[in-house]
Protein backbone atom coordinates (compact mmCIF):
# COMPACT_ATOMS: atom_id res chain seq x y z
CA UNK A 1 0.00 0.00 0.00
CA UNK A 2 1.85 3.04 -1.27
CA UNK A 3 0.93 6.56 -0.19
CA UNK A 4 0.49 8.58 -3.39
CA UNK A 5 2.42 11.73 -4.18
CA UNK A 6 1.08 14.84 -2.47
CA UNK A 7 -1.18 12.92 -0.10
CA UNK A 8 0.72 13.83 3.06
CA UNK A 9 1.18 17.42 4.27
CA UNK A 10 4.77 18.59 3.56
CA UNK A 11 5.77 18.77 7.26
CA UNK A 12 4.67 15.17 7.89
CA UNK A 13 6.31 13.92 4.72
CA UNK A 14 9.55 15.54 5.92
CA UNK A 15 9.16 14.06 9.41
CA UNK A 16 8.70 10.51 8.05
CA UNK A 17 11.71 10.99 5.79
CA UNK A 18 13.76 11.99 8.84
CA UNK A 19 12.46 8.96 10.75
CA UNK A 20 13.40 6.57 7.95
CA UNK A 21 16.79 8.18 7.23
CA UNK A 22 18.89 6.53 10.00
CA UNK A 23 17.72 3.05 8.97
CA UNK A 24 18.41 3.73 5.32
CA UNK A 25 21.86 5.17 6.10
CA UNK A 26 22.62 2.08 8.19
CA UNK A 27 21.38 -0.11 5.35
CA UNK A 28 23.50 1.70 2.78
CA UNK A 29 26.47 1.39 5.12
CA UNK A 30 26.07 -2.37 5.47
CA UNK A 31 25.53 -2.66 1.71
CA UNK A 32 28.72 -0.70 1.00
CA UNK A 33 30.62 -2.86 3.50
CA UNK A 34 29.31 -6.03 1.88
CA UNK A 35 30.36 -4.82 -1.57
CA UNK A 36 33.83 -3.89 -0.29
CA UNK A 37 34.31 -7.27 1.40
CA UNK A 38 33.22 -9.26 -1.64
CA UNK A 39 33.08 -7.53 -5.03
CA UNK A 40 30.94 -10.39 -6.35
CA UNK A 41 28.23 -9.26 -3.94
CA UNK A 42 27.55 -6.20 -6.09
CA UNK A 43 25.99 -8.23 -8.87
CA UNK A 44 24.11 -10.43 -6.44
CA UNK A 45 22.72 -7.34 -4.72
CA UNK A 46 21.70 -6.00 -8.11
CA UNK A 47 19.93 -9.28 -8.84
CA UNK A 48 18.29 -9.21 -5.40
CA UNK A 49 17.04 -5.66 -5.94
CA UNK A 50 15.63 -6.52 -9.35
CA UNK A 51 13.97 -9.60 -7.80
CA UNK A 52 12.37 -7.45 -5.06
CA UNK A 53 11.09 -4.99 -7.66
CA UNK A 54 9.56 -7.64 -9.89
CA UNK A 55 8.06 -9.45 -6.90
CA UNK A 56 6.28 -6.27 -5.84
CA UNK A 57 5.11 -5.64 -9.41
CA UNK A 58 3.34 -9.03 -9.62
CA UNK A 59 -0.42 -9.00 -9.28
CA UNK A 60 -1.78 -11.39 -6.73
CA UNK A 61 -5.46 -12.21 -6.47
CA UNK A 62 -7.34 -10.98 -3.45
CA UNK A 63 -10.29 -12.85 -1.98
CA UNK A 64 -12.63 -9.95 -2.68
CA UNK A 65 -12.09 -10.35 -6.42
CA UNK A 66 -9.76 -7.40 -6.84
CA UNK A 67 -6.09 -8.02 -7.35
CA UNK A 68 -3.31 -6.23 -5.61
CA UNK A 69 0.45 -6.13 -5.36
CA UNK A 70 2.35 -8.06 -2.71
CA UNK A 71 4.92 -6.12 -0.73
CA UNK A 72 7.54 -8.85 -0.90
CA UNK A 73 9.20 -7.33 2.16
CA UNK A 74 8.72 -10.41 4.35
CA UNK A 75 10.55 -12.65 1.89
CA UNK A 76 13.15 -9.94 1.34
CA UNK A 77 13.78 -9.63 5.07
CA UNK A 78 14.20 -13.41 5.48
CA UNK A 79 16.51 -13.68 2.47
CA UNK A 80 18.61 -10.52 2.76
CA UNK A 81 18.13 -9.37 6.43
CA UNK A 82 16.41 -6.10 7.44
CA UNK A 83 19.42 -3.71 7.18
CA UNK A 84 20.14 -4.65 3.57
CA UNK A 85 16.39 -4.67 2.92
CA UNK A 86 16.20 -1.03 4.13
CA UNK A 87 18.59 -0.04 1.34
CA UNK A 88 17.17 -2.37 -1.33
CA UNK A 89 13.61 -1.46 -0.33
CA UNK A 90 14.33 2.25 -0.69
CA UNK A 91 15.73 1.72 -4.17
CA UNK A 92 12.75 -0.48 -5.07
CA UNK A 93 10.32 2.17 -3.83
CA UNK A 94 12.11 4.89 -5.78
CA UNK A 95 11.89 2.78 -8.93
CA UNK A 96 8.24 2.02 -8.26
CA UNK A 97 7.50 5.74 -7.94
CA UNK A 98 9.32 6.64 -11.15
CA UNK A 99 8.57 3.58 -13.30
CA UNK A 100 5.17 2.35 -12.12
CA UNK A 101 3.68 5.45 -10.44
CA UNK A 102 3.27 3.45 -7.19
CA UNK A 103 3.94 5.91 -4.40
CA UNK A 104 5.44 9.34 -4.63
CA UNK A 105 8.70 11.22 -4.28
CA UNK A 106 7.73 13.50 -1.40
CA UNK A 107 5.99 10.57 0.28
CA UNK A 108 8.99 8.29 -0.36
CA UNK A 109 10.17 8.71 3.24
CA UNK A 110 6.80 7.66 4.65
CA UNK A 111 6.62 4.68 2.30
CA UNK A 112 10.21 3.70 3.12
CA UNK A 113 9.40 3.83 6.82
CA UNK A 114 6.43 1.47 6.47
CA UNK A 115 7.72 -0.83 3.72
CA UNK A 116 11.50 -0.86 4.03
CA UNK A 117 11.94 -0.34 7.78
CA UNK A 118 8.97 -1.49 9.87
CA UNK A 119 7.79 -4.25 7.51
CA UNK A 120 11.17 -6.03 7.24
CA UNK A 121 11.98 -5.74 10.95
CA UNK A 122 8.56 -7.00 12.07
CA UNK A 123 8.67 -9.77 9.46
CA UNK A 124 12.17 -10.77 10.48
CA UNK A 125 11.27 -10.75 14.18
CA UNK A 126 8.25 -12.98 13.44
CA UNK A 127 10.45 -15.29 11.38
CA UNK A 128 13.14 -15.61 14.08
CA UNK A 129 10.59 -16.23 16.85
CA UNK A 130 8.68 -18.87 14.91
CA UNK A 131 11.94 -20.57 13.89
CA UNK A 132 13.08 -20.57 17.52
CA UNK A 133 9.75 -21.93 18.75
CA UNK A 134 9.60 -24.59 16.06
CA UNK A 135 13.25 -25.60 16.33
CA UNK A 136 12.32 -29.19 17.29
CA UNK A 137 10.16 -29.64 14.18
CA UNK A 138 11.55 -30.85 10.86
CA UNK A 139 13.33 -28.08 8.96
CA UNK A 140 10.73 -27.88 6.15
CA UNK A 141 7.87 -27.39 8.62
CA UNK A 142 9.68 -24.83 10.73
CA UNK A 143 10.89 -22.99 7.64
CA UNK A 144 7.39 -22.94 6.16
CA UNK A 145 5.80 -21.68 9.38
CA UNK A 146 8.53 -19.08 9.87
CA UNK A 147 8.29 -17.79 6.34
CA UNK A 148 4.50 -17.58 6.47
CA UNK A 149 4.72 -15.63 9.73
CA UNK A 150 7.34 -13.31 8.23
CA UNK A 151 5.37 -12.51 5.07
CA UNK A 152 2.04 -12.20 6.89
CA UNK A 153 3.41 -10.04 9.71
CA UNK A 154 5.44 -7.84 7.37
CA UNK A 155 2.50 -7.22 5.05
CA UNK A 156 0.11 -6.58 7.92
CA UNK A 157 2.49 -4.26 9.79
CA UNK A 158 3.13 -2.28 6.61
CA UNK A 159 -0.60 -1.78 6.23
CA UNK A 160 -0.98 -0.82 9.91
CA UNK A 161 1.84 1.72 9.77
CA UNK A 162 0.45 3.25 6.57
CA UNK A 163 -2.99 3.58 8.18
CA UNK A 164 -1.32 5.22 11.19
CA UNK A 165 0.57 7.63 8.93
CA UNK A 166 -2.67 8.61 7.21
CA UNK A 167 -4.47 8.94 10.55
CA UNK A 168 -1.76 11.27 11.91
CA UNK A 169 -2.04 13.38 8.77
CA UNK A 170 -5.83 13.54 8.78
CA UNK A 171 -7.19 13.19 12.33
CA UNK A 172 -10.92 12.59 12.59
CA UNK A 173 -13.09 15.59 13.51
CA UNK A 174 -14.73 13.68 16.38
CA UNK A 175 -12.57 10.63 17.05
CA UNK A 176 -9.12 12.23 16.68
CA UNK A 177 -6.14 10.20 15.53
CA UNK A 178 -7.56 6.95 16.94
CA UNK A 179 -10.84 7.46 15.10
CA UNK A 180 -9.04 8.27 11.87
CA UNK A 181 -6.87 5.17 12.28
CA UNK A 182 -9.99 3.00 12.58
CA UNK A 183 -11.42 4.62 9.43
CA UNK A 184 -8.31 4.20 7.27
CA UNK A 185 -7.59 0.72 8.61
CA UNK A 186 -11.17 -0.35 7.81
CA UNK A 187 -11.19 1.14 4.33
CA UNK A 188 -7.94 -0.56 3.34
CA UNK A 189 -8.51 -3.81 5.25
CA UNK A 190 -10.81 -5.01 2.46
CA UNK A 191 -7.84 -5.59 0.21
CA UNK A 192 -4.92 -5.70 2.64
CA UNK A 193 -5.88 -8.46 5.10
CA UNK A 194 -6.72 -11.12 2.47
CA UNK A 195 -3.64 -9.94 0.58
CA UNK A 196 -1.44 -10.60 3.61
CA UNK A 197 -2.75 -14.18 3.88
CA UNK A 198 -2.28 -14.85 0.17
CA UNK A 199 1.17 -13.29 0.26
CA UNK A 200 2.08 -15.55 3.18
CA UNK A 201 0.95 -18.63 1.23
CA UNK A 202 2.77 -17.59 -1.95
CA UNK A 203 5.94 -16.91 0.04
CA UNK A 204 5.77 -20.37 1.61
CA UNK A 205 5.54 -21.90 -1.87
CA UNK A 206 8.51 -19.81 -3.03
CA UNK A 207 10.73 -20.78 -0.12
CA UNK A 208 9.74 -24.46 -0.22
CA UNK A 209 10.66 -24.61 -3.89
CA UNK A 210 13.86 -22.69 -3.27
CA UNK A 211 14.88 -25.10 -0.53
CA UNK A 212 15.08 -27.78 -3.22
CA UNK A 213 16.03 -25.95 -6.42
CA UNK A 214 17.90 -23.01 -4.94
CA UNK A 215 19.45 -24.73 -1.97
CA UNK A 216 22.92 -23.37 -2.65
CA UNK A 217 21.70 -19.78 -2.64
CA UNK A 218 19.65 -20.25 0.54
CA UNK A 219 22.66 -21.75 2.31
CA UNK A 220 24.75 -18.86 1.11
CA UNK A 221 22.20 -16.40 2.45
CA UNK A 222 22.07 -18.30 5.75
CA UNK A 223 18.35 -19.09 5.50
CA UNK A 224 18.76 -22.86 5.76
CA UNK A 225 20.32 -24.30 8.88
CA UNK A 226 23.00 -26.15 6.99
CA UNK A 227 24.71 -22.88 6.15
CA UNK A 228 26.53 -20.40 8.34
CA UNK A 229 24.18 -17.89 9.89
CA UNK A 230 26.17 -14.90 8.71
CA UNK A 231 25.05 -12.05 6.47
CA UNK A 232 23.58 -11.87 3.04
CA UNK A 233 26.85 -11.94 1.23
CA UNK A 234 28.95 -14.45 3.07
CA UNK A 235 31.36 -15.75 0.57
CA UNK A 236 33.00 -19.11 0.00
CA UNK A 237 32.67 -20.31 3.62
CA UNK A 238 28.95 -20.82 3.23
CA UNK A 239 29.40 -22.75 0.03
CA UNK A 240 31.69 -25.24 1.70
CA UNK A 241 28.96 -26.35 4.10
CA UNK A 242 26.75 -27.20 1.14
CA UNK A 243 28.01 -30.75 0.88
CA UNK A 244 27.60 -31.52 4.57
CA UNK A 245 24.03 -30.25 4.55
CA UNK A 246 23.04 -31.98 1.36
CA UNK A 247 21.29 -35.26 2.11
CA UNK A 248 18.44 -33.96 4.30
CA UNK A 249 16.40 -32.77 1.39
CA UNK A 250 15.19 -34.60 -1.66
CA UNK A 251 16.71 -32.93 -4.70
CA UNK A 252 13.85 -33.89 -6.92
CA UNK A 253 10.27 -34.81 -6.32
CA UNK A 254 6.77 -33.51 -6.60
CA UNK A 255 7.65 -30.08 -5.20
CA UNK A 256 10.03 -29.31 -8.02
CA UNK A 257 7.36 -29.83 -10.64
CA UNK A 258 5.89 -26.34 -10.69
CA UNK A 259 9.32 -24.94 -11.50
CA UNK A 260 9.43 -26.91 -14.68
CA UNK A 261 5.89 -25.64 -15.12
CA UNK A 262 7.39 -22.21 -15.21
CA UNK A 263 9.95 -22.99 -17.87
CA UNK A 264 9.66 -20.29 -20.44
CA UNK A 265 11.50 -21.93 -23.23
CA UNK A 266 9.40 -25.09 -23.25
Amino acid at each position, binding site marked *: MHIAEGFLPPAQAAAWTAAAAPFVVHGVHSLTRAVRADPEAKLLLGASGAFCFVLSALK*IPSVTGSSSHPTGVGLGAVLFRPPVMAALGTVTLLFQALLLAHGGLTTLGANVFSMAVVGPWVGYAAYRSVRALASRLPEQTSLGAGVFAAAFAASLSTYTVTSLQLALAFPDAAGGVAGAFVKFATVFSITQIPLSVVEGLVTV*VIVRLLSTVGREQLLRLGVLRGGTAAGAVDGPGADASDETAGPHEPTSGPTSEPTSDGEAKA
Partner: protein
Amino acid sequence: MLTIDAEAYRSPWRTVHPAVKGVLFGGLLVCALALPAWPGAALAGAVALAFGLGPARVPPRKLLRTGLGPLAFIATGAAALLVSVGGPDGPIAWDPQGAARAAELTGRASAAVVCQLLFAFTTPLADLLPRLSRAGLPPALVEVVALIYRMLFVALDTARRVGAAQAGRLGYANRRNRVRSLGALGAALFVRSYDRAARLQRGLECRGYTGALTVLVDDIPLRASALAAAAVPAVLVAAAALTLGAWT
Protein backbone atom coordinates in the same frame (compact mmCIF):
# COMPACT_ATOMS: atom_id res chain seq x y z
CA MET B 1 9.34 -2.30 -21.42
CA LEU B 2 7.42 -0.38 -18.83
CA THR B 3 5.07 2.25 -20.24
CA ILE B 4 6.62 5.18 -18.39
CA ASP B 5 10.20 4.32 -19.33
CA ALA B 6 9.30 3.61 -22.96
CA GLU B 7 7.55 6.96 -23.26
CA ALA B 8 10.42 8.74 -21.51
CA TYR B 9 12.84 7.44 -24.14
CA ARG B 10 10.55 8.63 -26.93
CA SER B 11 9.89 12.00 -25.35
CA PRO B 12 10.99 15.10 -27.30
CA TRP B 13 12.15 16.45 -23.96
CA ARG B 14 14.70 13.68 -23.52
CA THR B 15 17.38 16.08 -24.73
CA VAL B 16 16.52 18.54 -21.97
CA HIS B 17 18.78 18.25 -18.92
CA PRO B 18 17.06 16.33 -16.08
CA ALA B 19 17.76 19.20 -13.68
CA VAL B 20 15.75 21.60 -15.87
CA LYS B 21 12.77 19.21 -15.94
CA GLY B 22 13.23 18.66 -12.22
CA VAL B 23 13.03 22.39 -11.54
CA LEU B 24 9.98 22.81 -13.80
CA PHE B 25 7.87 19.92 -12.48
CA GLY B 26 9.40 19.99 -8.99
CA GLY B 27 8.57 23.69 -8.68
CA LEU B 28 4.98 23.06 -9.73
CA LEU B 29 4.84 20.11 -7.32
CA VAL B 30 5.93 22.37 -4.47
CA CYS B 31 3.24 24.87 -5.55
CA ALA B 32 0.62 22.11 -5.46
CA LEU B 33 1.67 21.08 -1.96
CA ALA B 34 2.40 24.42 -0.33
CA LEU B 35 -0.21 26.80 -1.79
CA PRO B 36 -3.88 26.72 -0.81
CA ALA B 37 -5.48 23.87 -2.76
CA TRP B 38 -7.88 26.27 -4.46
CA PRO B 39 -6.66 27.90 -6.66
CA GLY B 40 -2.98 26.94 -6.06
CA ALA B 41 -3.05 23.18 -6.66
CA ALA B 42 -5.54 23.49 -9.51
CA LEU B 43 -3.36 26.07 -11.28
CA ALA B 44 -0.17 24.05 -10.70
CA GLY B 45 -1.83 20.89 -12.07
CA ALA B 46 -3.24 22.72 -15.08
CA VAL B 47 0.09 24.37 -15.93
CA ALA B 48 1.97 21.07 -15.55
CA LEU B 49 -0.57 19.35 -17.82
CA ALA B 50 -0.27 22.15 -20.37
CA PHE B 51 3.50 21.66 -20.50
CA GLY B 52 3.26 17.88 -20.48
CA LEU B 53 0.58 17.47 -23.14
CA GLY B 54 1.80 20.46 -25.17
CA PRO B 55 5.53 20.80 -25.83
CA ALA B 56 6.51 17.52 -24.10
CA ARG B 57 3.86 15.58 -26.12
CA VAL B 58 3.08 13.03 -23.42
CA PRO B 59 0.32 10.72 -24.73
CA PRO B 60 -2.77 11.62 -22.65
CA ARG B 61 -4.25 8.12 -22.70
CA LYS B 62 -1.10 6.50 -21.36
CA LEU B 63 -0.77 9.22 -18.76
CA LEU B 64 -4.32 8.59 -17.60
CA ARG B 65 -3.90 4.80 -17.52
CA THR B 66 -0.72 5.08 -15.46
CA GLY B 67 -2.32 7.62 -13.16
CA LEU B 68 -5.31 5.42 -12.37
CA GLY B 69 -3.46 3.51 -9.62
CA PRO B 70 -2.47 6.52 -7.51
CA LEU B 71 -5.82 8.19 -8.24
CA ALA B 72 -7.63 5.12 -6.90
CA PHE B 73 -5.58 5.36 -3.71
CA ILE B 74 -6.34 9.09 -3.43
CA ALA B 75 -10.06 8.48 -3.94
CA THR B 76 -10.15 5.67 -1.35
CA GLY B 77 -8.18 7.70 1.17
CA ALA B 78 -10.24 10.84 0.61
CA ALA B 79 -13.48 8.87 0.95
CA ALA B 80 -12.48 8.06 4.53
CA LEU B 81 -12.53 11.78 5.31
CA LEU B 82 -16.24 12.03 4.43
CA VAL B 83 -17.32 10.36 7.66
CA SER B 84 -16.34 10.83 11.27
CA VAL B 85 -16.33 8.08 13.88
CA GLY B 86 -17.01 8.01 17.58
CA GLY B 87 -18.73 11.41 17.70
CA PRO B 88 -21.94 12.35 19.54
CA ASP B 89 -24.05 11.44 16.46
CA GLY B 90 -23.32 7.73 16.67
CA PRO B 91 -20.39 5.48 15.79
CA ILE B 92 -20.32 6.56 12.15
CA ALA B 93 -21.67 9.94 11.12
CA TRP B 94 -21.50 12.19 8.09
CA ASP B 95 -18.82 14.82 8.66
CA PRO B 96 -20.14 18.28 7.63
CA GLN B 97 -16.63 19.53 6.81
CA GLY B 98 -15.62 16.19 5.32
CA ALA B 99 -16.58 16.92 1.73
CA ALA B 100 -14.52 20.12 1.63
CA ARG B 101 -11.49 18.39 3.20
CA ALA B 102 -11.80 15.44 0.83
CA ALA B 103 -12.10 17.74 -2.21
CA GLU B 104 -9.07 19.75 -1.09
CA LEU B 105 -7.00 16.61 -0.53
CA THR B 106 -8.06 15.08 -3.85
CA GLY B 107 -7.22 18.25 -5.76
CA ARG B 108 -3.85 18.71 -4.08
CA ALA B 109 -2.75 15.10 -4.39
CA SER B 110 -3.98 14.74 -8.01
CA ALA B 111 -2.03 17.84 -9.04
CA ALA B 112 1.06 16.49 -7.28
CA VAL B 113 0.66 13.08 -8.98
CA VAL B 114 0.39 14.82 -12.38
CA CYS B 115 3.67 16.71 -11.75
CA GLN B 116 5.45 13.52 -10.64
CA LEU B 117 4.13 11.50 -13.59
CA LEU B 118 5.07 14.14 -16.14
CA PHE B 119 8.63 14.24 -14.82
CA ALA B 120 8.79 10.44 -15.05
CA PHE B 121 7.24 10.47 -18.53
CA THR B 122 9.91 12.84 -19.88
CA THR B 123 13.05 11.60 -18.07
CA PRO B 124 14.38 8.05 -18.52
CA LEU B 125 15.86 6.65 -15.31
CA ALA B 126 19.03 5.82 -17.23
CA ASP B 127 19.64 9.57 -17.71
CA LEU B 128 18.98 10.23 -14.04
CA LEU B 129 20.96 7.47 -12.30
CA PRO B 130 24.54 8.33 -13.39
CA ARG B 131 23.96 11.87 -12.13
CA LEU B 132 23.14 10.57 -8.67
CA SER B 133 26.81 9.95 -7.85
CA ARG B 134 27.52 13.62 -8.59
CA ALA B 135 24.82 14.44 -6.05
CA GLY B 136 27.02 12.95 -3.33
CA LEU B 137 25.63 9.43 -2.94
CA PRO B 138 28.20 6.66 -2.20
CA PRO B 139 29.50 5.21 -5.51
CA ALA B 140 28.88 1.62 -4.36
CA LEU B 141 25.20 2.43 -3.83
CA VAL B 142 24.87 4.20 -7.18
CA GLU B 143 26.42 1.17 -8.90
CA VAL B 144 24.06 -1.24 -7.17
CA VAL B 145 21.14 1.04 -8.11
CA ALA B 146 22.31 1.11 -11.73
CA LEU B 147 22.69 -2.68 -11.72
CA ILE B 148 19.19 -3.12 -10.32
CA TYR B 149 17.87 -0.88 -13.08
CA ARG B 150 19.69 -2.87 -15.78
CA MET B 151 18.65 -6.24 -14.38
CA LEU B 152 15.04 -5.49 -13.64
CA PHE B 153 13.89 -5.40 -17.25
CA VAL B 154 15.36 -8.85 -17.88
CA ALA B 155 13.74 -10.04 -14.65
CA LEU B 156 10.39 -8.51 -15.64
CA ASP B 157 10.63 -10.19 -19.01
CA THR B 158 11.41 -13.52 -17.34
CA ALA B 159 8.41 -13.09 -15.03
CA ARG B 160 6.16 -12.29 -18.01
CA ARG B 161 7.31 -15.36 -19.98
CA VAL B 162 7.03 -17.70 -17.00
CA GLY B 163 3.58 -16.28 -16.28
CA ALA B 164 2.46 -16.81 -19.89
CA ALA B 165 3.76 -20.40 -19.87
CA GLN B 166 1.96 -21.08 -16.59
CA ALA B 167 -1.29 -19.53 -17.85
CA GLY B 168 -1.04 -21.71 -20.96
CA ARG B 169 -1.04 -24.75 -18.65
CA LEU B 170 -4.07 -23.52 -16.68
CA GLY B 171 -1.77 -22.37 -13.92
CA TYR B 172 -4.13 -19.54 -13.05
CA ALA B 173 -7.40 -21.41 -13.54
CA ASN B 174 -8.40 -21.49 -9.88
CA ARG B 175 -7.32 -19.99 -6.60
CA ARG B 176 -5.21 -22.95 -5.50
CA ASN B 177 -3.34 -23.04 -8.80
CA ARG B 178 -2.84 -19.31 -8.68
CA VAL B 179 -1.03 -19.42 -5.35
CA ARG B 180 1.06 -22.38 -6.52
CA SER B 181 1.93 -20.75 -9.83
CA LEU B 182 2.85 -17.43 -8.28
CA GLY B 183 5.09 -19.22 -5.81
CA ALA B 184 6.73 -21.19 -8.60
CA LEU B 185 7.16 -17.98 -10.57
CA GLY B 186 8.84 -16.27 -7.62
CA ALA B 187 11.18 -19.22 -7.03
CA ALA B 188 12.11 -19.51 -10.71
CA LEU B 189 12.73 -15.79 -10.84
CA PHE B 190 15.02 -15.89 -7.82
CA VAL B 191 17.08 -18.81 -9.11
CA ARG B 192 17.39 -17.30 -12.57
CA SER B 193 18.26 -13.83 -11.27
CA TYR B 194 21.09 -15.27 -9.19
CA ASP B 195 22.26 -17.49 -11.99
CA ARG B 196 22.25 -14.56 -14.38
CA ALA B 197 24.19 -12.40 -11.91
CA ALA B 198 26.83 -15.14 -11.54
CA ARG B 199 27.16 -15.48 -15.32
CA LEU B 200 27.33 -11.72 -15.74
CA GLN B 201 30.06 -11.63 -13.10
CA ARG B 202 32.10 -14.25 -14.97
CA GLY B 203 31.59 -12.48 -18.29
CA LEU B 204 32.66 -9.15 -16.85
CA GLU B 205 35.70 -10.66 -15.16
CA CYS B 206 36.82 -12.10 -18.50
CA ARG B 207 36.72 -8.55 -19.84
CA GLY B 208 38.87 -7.14 -17.07
CA TYR B 209 36.15 -6.10 -14.63
CA THR B 210 37.66 -4.28 -11.67
CA GLY B 211 34.47 -3.27 -9.93
CA ALA B 212 33.48 -0.20 -11.94
CA LEU B 213 30.84 -0.35 -14.65
CA THR B 214 31.44 2.68 -16.79
CA VAL B 215 28.72 3.70 -19.21
CA LEU B 216 28.50 6.61 -21.62
CA VAL B 217 26.07 9.28 -20.54
CA ASP B 218 24.81 11.76 -23.11
CA ASP B 219 26.46 14.99 -22.21
CA ILE B 220 23.65 17.51 -22.03
CA PRO B 221 24.88 21.03 -21.27
CA LEU B 222 23.19 22.61 -18.30
CA ARG B 223 22.69 26.32 -18.80
CA ALA B 224 21.79 28.63 -15.93
CA SER B 225 19.36 30.49 -18.19
CA ALA B 226 17.43 27.25 -18.87
CA LEU B 227 17.25 26.53 -15.15
CA ALA B 228 15.98 30.02 -14.45
CA ALA B 229 13.40 29.76 -17.25
CA ALA B 230 12.20 26.41 -15.82
CA ALA B 231 11.54 28.07 -12.48
CA VAL B 232 9.37 30.80 -14.04
CA PRO B 233 6.09 28.79 -14.36
CA ALA B 234 6.19 27.83 -10.67
CA VAL B 235 6.84 31.44 -9.62
CA LEU B 236 4.01 32.68 -11.85
CA VAL B 237 1.62 30.02 -10.49
CA ALA B 238 2.53 30.96 -6.93
CA ALA B 239 2.04 34.68 -7.64
CA ALA B 240 -1.27 34.09 -9.45
CA ALA B 241 -2.59 31.78 -6.73
CA LEU B 242 -1.68 34.18 -3.95
CA THR B 243 -3.24 37.15 -5.81
CA LEU B 244 -6.41 35.20 -6.59
CA GLY B 245 -6.50 33.95 -3.00
CA ALA B 246 -6.26 37.53 -1.71
CA TRP B 247 -9.16 38.57 -4.00
CA THR B 248 -11.55 35.88 -2.88
